[in-house]
């Protein structure tokens, strides 16, 4: 539909901003780059909101079912008459929701960074990278073709790499950016193979056609893909599981989660944007995009469910022991994404059974607000206290009132206390889990309790606990540009729960009526309140109770504190096994055989040339002799041989 073609501006404005700021920002614009970046994102946000309004309220529905609208499409690479990579923009409920989220959170982060990153030498570069990331993420959610989403997937990975490694003088930051990129790249290998499998059997790369071919049970593509098996599972399962592996890498699901805690080496606004609200939900978005196909294959759904649930529980347990603010928030993110993932896993397609899908997307929506609020608040705290460690913080509520209140609102939201937004989205998820599997429901409720516990542990340790000793050179709470996003996001966190998401976003497009089941919600809320009270008892004032509990758990506490030694296992595998058995021989071959061959050719040429050089002796009579010999030789040749 061509009259939606202004949608192309939404990702292209940040892209233009990236080029301008990247090429000219450092020299010509300097601190004005922040304003340029913020302004372009502001326009993208306005456009996204306008499109959302148009789509959800005016034009999107046909027969009260939301349609997938292809806004633009052009053929890029044609492989065969009916297989081609097209570049296009797809509008459907989740992509419209995502562009609103991405551009809005990006706007908040841009405004916050005006104050947080003030004084940085590479200020313009930072904004250029932020614009690149925003462009990549917007392109990812608007992709109409599975290969196009892969292209933007990689672009997002690159932007994340650039932003994590922003403080490149710190070796830990460089190592963290490398780790993030390599782990996600490794997962993307699975993603690519999954794409190829799905594309091979369905004969197309376009999302709409692919879903259509692989979900209608009579279509030849579906019959072929589900009958071909490999190691006992059908190719459909393999394709979907491999695609899910790619999503799991990006979304930091167990066991590909190792990069997310280390990614906190980047600047805090970057963590707010990328590692809380937008990039890490790309995996969830991918599964949601391919949800009709996923929902047919029960094995794949089981895997999604269990990976999500396990990641949620694992992260919540580890977060209880971490002492770095940002790492607690990182594990909290992993846990919440686990929630979104298993919610998709337990959902079915269509009608009431698709509640899990709606809950997952609703949670994605609300999580974006409160998690980025938490991270920005943490950024403000770090800005004041120059320290990430909660053991050194405390009593900040007296110095930073705005941050205190908004942080509290976000913690209440994430704990699932009504009437804040987290309660509504978690309720949908728990309801879907309850209808599907009681075990998953039990894990989910327990994890919710743990979530409330560790979040309030964090809250009390920062803002209550002990009194704060002011740093000599510390400044106040932060500039206005740092407070405004906190306030705006706080307001959104309070009211986002009241948005009737289920009438917009459902698994099959038809609106769903949702209702609050008070009796059902009582138990999870009770678990959350228990967690909050436990955290208050242990952490509100400075005391020994938490230390006593920790020492009584002894060995187990240590294992959890070291994040179950997963990082060490990975290091062992890569260093001892892969590097030694594959890396070193390959390096030896490269250095001695490949380079040796080239060097041999070079030295041989040199030796030959030294030999030839001696012919030029400078002696005229030698030259005359060669000349004469040549004449006789040529004469003999011509007369006798070439008659």
């Amino acid at each position, binding site marked *: 539909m061509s009259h939606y073609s202004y949608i192309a501006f939404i990702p292209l404005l940040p892209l233009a901003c990236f080029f301008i700021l990247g090429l000219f920002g450092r020299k010509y614009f300097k601190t004005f780059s922040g304003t340029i970046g913020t302004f372009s994102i502001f326009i993208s946000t306005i456009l996204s909101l306008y499109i959302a309004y148009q789509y959800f309220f005016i034009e999107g529905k046909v027969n009260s079912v939301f349609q997938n609208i292809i806004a633009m499409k052009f053929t890029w690479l044609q492989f065969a008459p009916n297989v081609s990579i097209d570049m296009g923009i797809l509008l459907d409920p989740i992509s419209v929701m995502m562009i609103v989220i991405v551009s809005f959170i990006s706007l908040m982060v841009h405004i916050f960074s005006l104050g947080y990153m003030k004084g940085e030498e590479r200020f313009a570069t930072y904004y250029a990278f932020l614009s690149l990331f925003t462009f990549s993420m917007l392109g990812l959610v608007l992709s109409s073709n599975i290969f196009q989403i892969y292209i933007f997937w990689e672009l997002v990975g690159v932007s994340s790499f650039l932003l994590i490694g922003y403080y490149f003088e710190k070796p830990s930051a460089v190592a963290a950016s490398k780790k993030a990129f390599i782990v996600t790249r490794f997962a993307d290998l699975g993603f690519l193979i999954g794409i190829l499998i799905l594309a091979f059997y369905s004969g197309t790369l376009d999302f709409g056609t692919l879903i259509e071919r692989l979900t209608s049970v009579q279509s030849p593509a579906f019959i072929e893909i589900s009958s071909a098996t490999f190691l006992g599972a059908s190719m459909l399962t393999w394709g979907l599981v491999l695609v899910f592996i790619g999503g799991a890498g990006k979304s930091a699901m167990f066991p590909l989660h190792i990069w997310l805690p280390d990614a906190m080496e980047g600047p805090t606004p970057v963590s707010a944007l990328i590692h809380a609200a937008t990039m890490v939900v790309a995996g969830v978005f991918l599964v949601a995009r391919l949800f009709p196909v996923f929902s047919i294959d029960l094995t794949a759904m089981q895997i999604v469910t269990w990976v999500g649930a396990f990641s949620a529980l694992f992260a919540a347990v580890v977060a209880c022991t971490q002492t770095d603010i940002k790492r607690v928030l990182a594990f909290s993110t992993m846990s919440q994404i686990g929630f979104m993932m298993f919610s998709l896993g337990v959902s079915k397609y269509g009608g009431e059974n698709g509640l899990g899908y709606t809950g997952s997307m609703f949670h994605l929506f609300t999580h974006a607000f409160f998690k980025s609020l938490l991270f920005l608040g943490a950024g403000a705290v770090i800005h004041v206290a120059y320290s990430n460690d909660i053991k050194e913080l405390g009593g900040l509520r007296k110095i930073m009132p705005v941050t205190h209140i908004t942080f509290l609102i976000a913690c209440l939201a994430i704990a699932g206390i009504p009437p804040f937004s987290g309660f509504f989205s978690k309720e949908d998820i728990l309801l879907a889990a309850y209808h599907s599997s009681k075990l998953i429901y039990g894990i989910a409720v327990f994890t919710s309790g743990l979530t409330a516990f560790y979040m309030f542990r964090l809250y009390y340790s920062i803002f209550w606990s002990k009194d704060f000793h002011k740093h000599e050179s510390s400044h106040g709470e932060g500039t206005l540009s740092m407070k405004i996003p906190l306030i705006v996001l706080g307001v959104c966190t309070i009211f986002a729960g009241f948005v009737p998401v289920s009438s917009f976003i459902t698994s099959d497009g038809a609106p769903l009526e949702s209702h609050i089941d008070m009796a059902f919600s009582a138990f999870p809320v009770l678990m959350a309140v228990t967690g909050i009270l436990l955290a208050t008892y242990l952490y509100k004032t400075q005391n020994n109770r938490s230390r006593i509990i920790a020492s009584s758990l002894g060995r187990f506490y240590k294992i959890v504190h070291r994040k179950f030694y997963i990082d060490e296992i990975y290091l062992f595998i890569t260093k001892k096994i892969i590097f030694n058995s594959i890396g070193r021989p390959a390096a030896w071959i490269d250095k001695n055989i490949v380079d040796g061959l080239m060097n041999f050719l070079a030295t041989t040429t040199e030796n030959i040339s030294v030999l030839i050089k001696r012919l030029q002796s400078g002696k005229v009579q*030698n030259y005359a*002799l060669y000349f*004469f*010999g040549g004449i*006789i030789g040529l*004469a003999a040749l011509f007369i006798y041989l070439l008659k």
Partner: protein
Amino acid sequence: MSASVIIFYIISAFILVAALLAVTTRRIFRSAIFLLFTLIGTAALFFWMGVEFIAAVQVIIYVGGIVVLIIFSIFLTQKSGDEMPKPLRNRSVFSALALIFGFAFTYHLINGYGFGQTNLQPFNVKVSEIGMQMLSTKEHGFVLPFEVVSILLLASMVGCIVIAMKIKPVEEKADKEYFKNE
């Protein structure tokens, strides 16, 4: 075996022996004299062939001019009594081999060519005819090469003077000026 044949063989042997000695002897003055003998032998060959004018020109210019010039330059540049250094062994062997091979090859070609019956017409070379033809502009006239050769002689004279001229170094003059002012 008429007398002219025998005379021809004697003259040829004389030429070749003198030439060989000219290129192999180690004393430079002797080499010049052997060259002189070779040139005289060539003049004798010309006499035998009936072109007396060329023989006379050969004796006057080659023997009387060029060899004298060479002897003068020998005196100017070195002690002519000493022995010259021997040539490099490698070089003399290789060049001898190459040249013998070349000579055999060339002579084989010449032999195989088949020049046909010798024309029995007598060969009359009258000096007046040479003179007339040298300056004639008609067919078979050589006036143009004659003029060109005269220009060439002029050019070579000028060239010799320029090449062999001693150029006074400029610094001497400048130094003299400098010291004059002090």
